């Protein structure tokens, strides 16, 4: 509604065509804003990449950031991974048992963890735990002029603040993903074998046979994109934070919501792309 009602003059009554016109104008306005924002964030990502190549961050800054982003996220990722693995077992057990295929549960659980749930879960936890914190921290730095202070002292804020966070997310998310996968596999296996009483030998043999290195690669490959997207979106939101406590809150929330949406969109696109790649490389797998 930004364009239509900026003046204080009395408006003529809204007719059908006028209302239609206004909706088209609103739609155009939203589209223009979205394209503008997309261009802006792409430019931000490009600057981050350029600075990453131009000058590596200092070792102590990078290590501290990797510790905060990676190591501190490990427990929560491991915990959620375990529970997701067990939940999968609970949900699928009766279905599989109906066909007498409960020893095949491991195949389903492990493949889901490797290909989908491991990377998406690790990325979601990273977006929630780290992404919001980055947006809030950088947002507070923006509104208290600390980012201006950095620039005024001849340090580039993107190089100093964004590059270490970007690199940490990019380098630590594969480990988090592998942790989520591993704990999911362990959780699912534990629940099936010890609680549901599935035969351990068959469960383990089937699990081993059905999962390939490709599946592990599939999940880890996707996670790099998720990590990069989380870092860029969160830093961008922080850098463009509106003034006040409300602005910081909104930056933190929107960084999570946008990261999550982007993770899901990327997940679908990459899954389609990787499947296409797989069947191009190994066409015999189709038959």
């Amino acid at each position: 509604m930004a364009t239509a009602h900026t003046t204080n003059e009395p408006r003529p009554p809204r007719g059908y065509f006028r209302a239609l016109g206004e909706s088209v104008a609103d739609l155009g306005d939203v589209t223009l804003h979205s394209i503008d924002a997309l261009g802006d964030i792409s430019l931000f990502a490009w600057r981050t990449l350029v600075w990453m190549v131009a000058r590596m961050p200092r070792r102590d800054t990078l290590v501290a950031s990797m510790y905060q982003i990676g190591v501190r996220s490990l427990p929560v990722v491991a915990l959620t991974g375990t529970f997701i693995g067990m939940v999968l077992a609970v949900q699928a057990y009766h279905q599989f048992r109906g066909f007498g295929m409960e020893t095949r549960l491991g195949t389903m659980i492990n493949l889901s963890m490797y290909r989908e749930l491991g990377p998406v879960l690790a990325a979601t936890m990273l977006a929630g735990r780290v992404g919001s914190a980055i947006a809030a921290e950088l947002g507070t730095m923006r509104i208290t002029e600390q980012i201006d202070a950095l620039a005024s002292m001849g340090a580039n804020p993107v190089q100093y603040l964004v590059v270490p966070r970007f690199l940490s997310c990019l380098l630590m998310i594969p480990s988090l993903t592998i942790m989520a996968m591993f704990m999911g596999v362990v959780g699912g296996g534990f629940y099936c074998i010890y609680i549901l009483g599935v035969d351990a030998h068959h469960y383990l043999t089937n699990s081993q046979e059905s999962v390939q290195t490709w599946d592990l690669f599939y999940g880890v490959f996707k996670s790099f994109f998720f990590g990069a997207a989380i870092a860029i979106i969160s830093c961008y939101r922080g850098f463009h934070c509106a003034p006040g406590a409300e602005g910081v809150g909104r930056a933190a929330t929107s960084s999570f919501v946008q990261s999550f949406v982007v993770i899901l969109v990327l997940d679908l696109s990459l899954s389609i792309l990787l499947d296409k790649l797989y069947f191009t490389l190994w066409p015999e797998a189709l038959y």
Partner: protein
Amino acid sequence: MASTKPEVAAEPIVELRDVCVEFGPQRVLRNVSLQVPRGQTLAVIGESGCGKTVLLKTVLGLQPVTSGEVLFQGERLAKLDDKQLTAVRTKFGFVFQNAALFDSMSIADNVAFPLVEHRRATREEAYQLVHERLAEVGLPPGVMLKKPAELSGGMRKRVGLARALAMRPEVLLYDEPTTGLDPIMSDVINELIIRTKKKYSVTSIIVTHDMHSALKVADRLVMLFPVTRLEPDEPQIIFDGTPQEAENSRDDRVSQFVRGEAGKRIDEMDQQLQHIYDSSMGA
């Protein structure tokens, strides 16, 4: 122009030419031109929201200009690449309104930041320099290990000044250096500004609405007026002269500001409100 001291060079170190800054539909600076000769202490005064801080940030390129040019030693900032801009910025020291200290770092690391960042010193050497700079602004070495949140407002401002002085800048930019401080601490800051100017013969640009401070430290006063209350062809700088000239100005807007009197401002505000009320009723 108030180049009161004979040793002040005529060549401007900082220059703004027809600078305009707009935020969306809102225009904050309109065709502002200003020359600051080397060694001068200039105070930019004006009421809140008239664009003083924005003006200060354009000098350093922290605020992009919509049109016009900003020059440092005759070179246009817009022409410089990132590396050159960084080199220029190291010649400036910026004292922020709320000090803008990095709250994740200790005071020592804050003051040492520019030195370490530009690899002018190892961390140990930098701490030695931090010690000296803090002493210059009257802070004991005990504060070095503290975090900014543990310090009072006045101490934070002084740390901000020490950090701005760390690289021995040629130009110091102060954004409301005395705002929010008690009268004694305000005067301490004023004295520090004067002491710094004498000791290092820096050029200083001070943005303030504290007239006591402006009259005490400045060689030259420039008054900005909000664009929204100007006539379309009126210049935004409504006064440019010595502090004495400001005190004797015949322009009501200047003399009232210098004396700190509301004058007709309260009636204007009532009229504005009435106008908004009338137009919304009409709609």
